[in-house]
C-alpha cells in the first residue's frame, strides 16, 4: 500500500462570483522512501497541494490518505499529531523563530512532542552535527547564512523522526552552490534513512535528476507524471 495516496483532490475558491480551481482532480501515489518532486510554474498549485499534504489546509474535496487515513477529515487535534510525528515541513523562507538560537529552534518540535527533556539537547546537537552546524548551535538565525538557516530548518523538520519531509521550494532563496548542498542533504536523508521526501520546486532539471517521481502541474491540474527508478 502506498504511504501517501492523493485521490480526486480538488480545491476551489471564489474571486467575486468566479469559481477558481486551485487544484483540479489530482491523483497520485507516493511510496515509502520515494523522493517526489512537484514542479510547475508560479500559480500552478504546487504550494497549495503541499499545504494540503502537510495538513496545514484541509478545505478541499477528495482525499489525501496517509497510512490509509484521510487527513482532510482529521480533527484539529489529530492534525497536530500528524504535523508533529508524521510530517516535517521545510519552507522557502526557512521560518525559523528569529529570537531563538539554532539549537532552540531545533528543540521546539521536541518540546511539542513531549520528548524527554534530558534527551532533547542531545537529539538537537546530533541533528545540528549531522548538518555540519554544531559550531553554530548558539547562533541566532540572523547570524546564519541562507544555507545554514535552511539546514537548521531541515534539522528541525527531522527532529521528531517523521516519515515524510515536505519541502516547499527549499532552494528558492539560495544561490546555486548552496541549493545543490541542500538538495544533496535531502537526497542523503532519502537514501540513507529512507525518509520519504516530497519537494515543491520550479527547477524541472534538478527535480528530474534527484526524484523517483516528478509530478508536473499546470493550472491546478497534473499534466504529466514522470518516473526515474535510479535518481
Amino acid at each position, binding site marked *: 500500500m502506498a504511504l501517501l495516496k492523493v485521490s480526486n483532490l480538488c480545491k476551489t475558491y471564489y474571486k467575486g462570483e468566479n469559481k477558481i480551481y486551485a487544484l483540479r482532480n489530482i491523483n497520485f501515489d507516493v511510496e515509502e522512501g520515494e523522493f517526489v518532486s512537484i514542479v510547475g510554474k508560479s500559480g500552478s498549485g504546487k504550494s497549495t497541494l503541499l*499545504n494540503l499534504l*502537510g495538513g*496545514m*489546509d484541509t478545505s478541499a474535496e477528495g482525499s489525501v490518505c496517509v497510512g490509509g487515513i484521510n487527513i482532510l477529515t482529521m480533527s*484539529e*487535534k489529530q492534525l*497536530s*499529531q500528524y*504535523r*508533529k*510525528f508524521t510530517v516535517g*515541513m521545510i*519552507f522557502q*523562507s526557512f*521560518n*525559523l*523563530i528569529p*529570537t*531563538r538560537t539554532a539549537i532552540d529552534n531545533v528543540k*521546539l*518540535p521536541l*518540546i*511539542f*512532542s*513531549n520528548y524527554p*527533556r534530558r534527551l532533547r539537547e542531545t537529539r538537537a546537537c546530533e541533528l545540528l552535527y549531522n548538518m555540519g552546524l554544531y559550531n553554530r548551535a548558539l547562533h541566532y538565525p540572523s547570524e546564519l547564512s541562507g544555507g545554514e538557516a535552511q539546514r537548521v530548518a531541515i534539522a*528541525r523538520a527531522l527532529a*521528531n523522526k517523521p516519515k515524510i519531509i515536505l519541502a516547499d521550494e527549499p532552494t528558492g532563496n539560495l544561490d546555486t552552490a548552496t541549493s545543490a548542498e541542500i538538495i544533496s542533504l535531502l537526497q542523503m536523508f532519502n537514501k540513507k534513512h529512507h525518509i520519504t521526501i516530497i519537494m515543491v520546486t520550479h527547477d524541472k532539471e534538478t527535480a528530474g535528476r534527484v526524484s523517483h517521481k516528478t509530478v508536473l502541474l499546470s493550472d491546478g491540474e497534473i499534466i504529466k507524471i514522470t518516473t526515474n527508478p535510479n535518481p
Partner: protein
Amino acid sequence: MKASDIAILAFYNLRRNTMRTILTSLGVAVGIGSLAAMISFAQGISGNISRSMENNDIFTGLTATSRSIDLDDPGARRSSSILSQEKAEVPLNDSVIDGIREWKEVAIAFPIVSKPATVQLAGRSLRASLKAVPIEMGEFPPFSNITRGRFFESADEPRVIISRQMLQQMKILIDGESDNVGLGGDVLSLPLDSVLDKELKIVTRVFDPDKLNFINPRKGELPLSNEVTSLRIAGIIDNGAFSSGVFNGTDVVIPSLAIDYVPCIDLRSIYDIMDGKSDSQHKYGSVHIRVKEHRNLKTVKFKLEEMGLQVFSVGDKLEDIENIFLMLDSIFAAVGVIALLVSILGIVNTLIMAIYERRKEIGIMKSLGGTQFQIKMIFYVEAAFIGLVGGICGVAGGKLASQAASSFANSQIGKIIGCDLEFFDFSWTLAVVAILFSVIISVAASFYPANRAASIDPLDALRRE
C-alpha cells in the same frame, strides 16, 4: 508538552519585551494594591470599631431608666406626671433590680451610682466621675482583662480603678509610653510602680451647715465645702478610645459598697425631692444590664419596656452599624474594582499586542505540531505570571501605602481620640487572597487573546512577513 516547558516558553516570551511586561505588571499591581488597601481599610475600620465594642460588651449592655427625658422640653416630664397619673413611673430600687437579675437572659444587673469629683495624682488634677461597680463585674470586660494591676477583691475594698485614657488626660504617661497621641508639653512620665497601689486623692463637695447664711441667703455662697478622700489605685484599664457603654475614660471605678466611703452631696433628683417621693421608692436613677448573648437583647429590652422603663442600648443599633460598614465595604471595593478593571484592560492589550507580534511564530509552532491547547496555555501562563508579579508587588505596595496612611491618620486623629487605631487590617489571608485573585483575574483576562492566538490559521500566519 510539560507544564515546565510551557512556563519556560511563557517566561521567555515575557522576557523578550521586558519593559512592556514590567508596565503591565505595574498596572496589575496598582489595581490589586488599591483593591487590597481599600478592603483592608474597610475591614480595619469596621473591625476596629466592632472589636472595641465587643471588648467592652457594648453589644450586650443596656441602660434602663425610670424617667423619660424630652430633650426639647425637659420640664414636660414633670408637668405630665402631675397632670396625668395614668402611667406611673416604675421605681428603680433593689427589689426591682433583684427581679431583673433573676431573668434567665440577664448576666448581670446593677444600679448606676455615681458621684462627681475631682481627682488628683502626682500633682495633676482632673474632673471625673466616681462610679460604683458590683464585685461580680470582675468577670466582664473591660474589668476581666486588666493588664496593669487587678480588679477589686471585695465589694467594700477601699480602692479604685482608673483608665489609661484618664492618665493621658492628666498628661501622665506610664511605663515609658511614647507620646504618640500628641499630648503636648508638660507631660509627666511615671513608672507603673509609682501609680499602682498609690493613693488617688478624690475631692468631692459635701454639705457644710457652717456656711448656711440664714440672715442673708442671697449674699452668701453655697453651703458646700471640699472633702478629700484618698483611695489606693488597684488597676489601670486600657480600654482604648471607646467607652464601655456605662463606664468611660474619665470615670474612677470603685466597689459598690466602698463608694459610701466617699462623702458627696446627693443631687441625684431634684424632681424627686420636689415630688416628695421617698428614697426607698426611687433609690436609683438608672440600672445597667448585661445580657448573656446579643440575641437576648431584644427580649430583655421588650421586658423592660413592658415594665414602663426607658431603655437605651448601643447593641440595638448594631444592624445600622453593620449596614454602614457594609456600605463602606461596597464603596471601597467598587473603587478597587475600577482600578482592577483598568489593569485587566492592560493585560488584554498586552496579550493582543503579543499576538500581532508573534503571529508568524504561532504559525510556526502550529506547523511543528503545536496544539491549540498548548498555544492557549502559553498565553495563560504569561498572563498568570503577570498577575503573580503584579499581585505580589500590589500587595507589598498596598501594605506599605496602608502603613504610611495609618501612621499619618494616627498622627492627626490620635490627638483627638487619645490613642492609636488600626485603620487598616492587612492580614496574611488578605495578602494571599489578593495575590490569588490577581492571578485568576489575569488568566481570565487572557481568555480572549489566548483563544484568538490558538485559532490563528498557520497557513495564513506563515504567509505574513
